[in-house]
């Protein structure tokens, strides 16, 4: 029972040349539940501190040979996490100042009131706990601001990584292009994490997923009463990104009117909330992404040229997965390991023919589709082995199955329409089946001009089932 029984117990080194002092102090500390080591001089104390790390050292100031200040100094050097308290029979301002200068946490005058010692132990414990928390938080912060690792060693991807490293430390606006699912958001996160703004927020806006009115309110915020339902003042994403990075995903889907509004904010870095009269300063770096050919959209008059050049100061194009087949195996193994951690199970192996199929597949949904495929395979797999039949791409090597005589766009349009009909136009369900995000489904509906059949039966023209 004399073992300490709670987390407030400490390991304490007592250093005093008077036997009666160290024994009575040691006995009291043991009664208080602490683990003690008693030393008669500085030499013994330093040897003890080499053997084990003490949380607290109570060191007598006046001792023959090495005095308490010297002990405090040496302990500070090689056992910096030990809190040192100097005990003195003759308190004076000079000795107190000297002790504190040598790294002591506090000093205490002998004989001391039990309350003083008890209070000192509590304070020292709280200080140690704060230091421990501080160290933990620093580690967490370092981990949180660590740039996300971009998996893949193909030259094409390494070029992307190189570009990220070059552009991240500055303030330059970046335009990320690439097909849906290639990891444009991951690139944006890496740019933010590698920038001096890493400790400030990264605010993500999916411009394609929101109707114009909602997007405007989301970006600019609104004052109370700005429109029906605006019961409270609401800060917009531009303001929320102050000091950090604003990531505008699917920038190619923004309406012409919104493009004008956005350009003004990007140029002036000032925002007027909807229904408001005064502007608010917002210092943010802008990173935008799109899976559209914005240059073509500019030529066709769908996207403002001035906004395009404002965003496209630095351009990163993320290649589709089919153009970096060399990354597929590494990515598949990475997802398998990551999912295994999440599912709390052993990392599965991938059978050779299954891996071969992964390499041959076209991956129209890119890395996102690959991640989903591995997840699905892990759910259905047995014996921690992913087999060919576990893969959701069974028998469909799309590059070999394109229907002859029809354009890719036509096939895509029909397929999306079919899935929408099958899901009764449940966008979330359709997005899950198509293995794309909801925003992409909305974009495709808009781009292909798809409409829901109100009367049931077969759907729009040109669609084969």
């Amino acid at each position: 029972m004399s073992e300490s029984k709670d987390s407030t117990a400490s390991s304490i080194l007592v250093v005093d040349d008077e036997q009666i002092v160290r024994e009575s102090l040691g006995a009291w500390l043991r009664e208080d539940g602490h683990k003690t080591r008693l030393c008669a001089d500085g030499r013994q104390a330093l040897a003890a501190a080499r053997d084990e790390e003490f949380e607290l050292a109570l060191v007598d100031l006046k001792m023959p040979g090495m005095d308490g200040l010297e002990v405090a100094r040496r302990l500070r050097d090689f056992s910096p996490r030990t809190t040192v308290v100097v005990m003195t029979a003759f308190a004076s301002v000079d000795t107190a100042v000297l002790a504190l200068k040598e790294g002591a946490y506090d000093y205490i005058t002998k004989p001391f009131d039990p309350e003083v010692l008890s209070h000192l132990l509590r304070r020292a414990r709280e200080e140690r706990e704060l230091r421990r928390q501080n160290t933990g938080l620093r580690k967490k912060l370092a981990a949180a601001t660590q740039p996300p690792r971009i998996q893949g060693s193909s030259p094409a991807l390494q070029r992307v990584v190189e570009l990220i490293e070059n552009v991240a430390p500055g303030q330059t606006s970046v335009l990320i292009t690439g097909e849906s699912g290639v990891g444009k958001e991951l690139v944006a996160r890496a740019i933010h994490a590698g920038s001096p703004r890493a400790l400030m927020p990264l605010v993500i806006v999916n411009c394609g997923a929101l109707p114009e009115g909602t997007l405007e309110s989301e970006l600019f915020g609104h004052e109370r009463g700005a429109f029906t339902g605006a019961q409270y003042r609401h800060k917009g994403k531009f303001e929320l990104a102050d000091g950090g990075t604003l990531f505008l995903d699917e920038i190619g889907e923004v309406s012409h009117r919104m493009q004008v509004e956005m350009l003004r904010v990007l140029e002036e870095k000032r925002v007027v909330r909807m229904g408001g009269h005064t502007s608010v300063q917002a210092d943010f770096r802008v990173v935008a992404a799109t899976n559209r050919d914005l240059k073509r959209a500019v030529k066709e008059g769908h996207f403002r040229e001035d906004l395009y050049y404002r965003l496209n100061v630095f351009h990163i194009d993320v290649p589709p997965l089919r153009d970096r087949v060399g990354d597929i195996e590494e990515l598949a193994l990475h997802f398998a390991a990551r999912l295994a951690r999440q599912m709390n199970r052993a990392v599965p192996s991938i059978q050779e023919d299954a891996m071969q199929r992964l390499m041959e597949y076209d991956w129209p949904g890119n890395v996102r589709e690959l991640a989903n495929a591995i997840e699905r395979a892990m759910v259905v797999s047995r014996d921690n082995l992913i087999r060919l039949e576990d893969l959701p791409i069974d028998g469909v090597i799309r590059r070999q199955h394109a229907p002859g005589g029809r354009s890719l766009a036509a096939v895509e349009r029909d397929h999306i329409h079919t899935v929408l009909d099958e899901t009764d136009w449940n966008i979330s369900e359709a997005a899950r089946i198509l293995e794309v995000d909801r925003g992409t489904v909305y974009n495709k509906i808009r781009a292909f001009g798809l409409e829901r059949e109100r009367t049931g039966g077969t759907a729009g023209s040109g669609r084969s089932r």
Partner: protein
Amino acid sequence: MERLVLVAVGDLELQWLELLHESLPDLIGRRCRIDPHALEPGFAANGPRRQYNANLLVEALVERVVDPGERVLGVTRLDLYLSVFTFVFGAAHLEGSGAVVSMHRLDPSKYGLEPDPALLPERLIKEAMHECGHLYGAVHCRTPECVMGFSAVVEEIDIKSSMPCPECARGIGIPPGTIGDQGA
């Protein structure tokens, strides 16, 4: 057989030993007896401090043990100290044979307050129980109200109960059901 021996240290009215003789067996789950011979404390006196060294008293009390199952608790009105402390309410050898408890700083009149006939015996029982806890192996406890909580000032004694928390009770080896409802 385990037994606690109560010894007067210096001048002490018999009523205090009788109070503990009556109260402690229920609390510690061991029988008690009163040693009729008081311990003469002169050897532990510290003239300049006008106090008595608690450690020396405990060592002398340990010599009273005649049976391996016995432990000794001295009770005194003297003011006690340990070498590093200005005063102590009591002292004990952890998992040892001897302990001492002082009534000197438990008395409200020591602090210029009106005498309280109920408060002094209550405090004495708690502090005697606390030192007995150390004798039977318990260390200071952070559970509020547990008698094994450390009291730096006399008011903190009033806050705690006279009984150990369940965990300390197990550590002290109090048989289940020994503790009655005799709270603080």
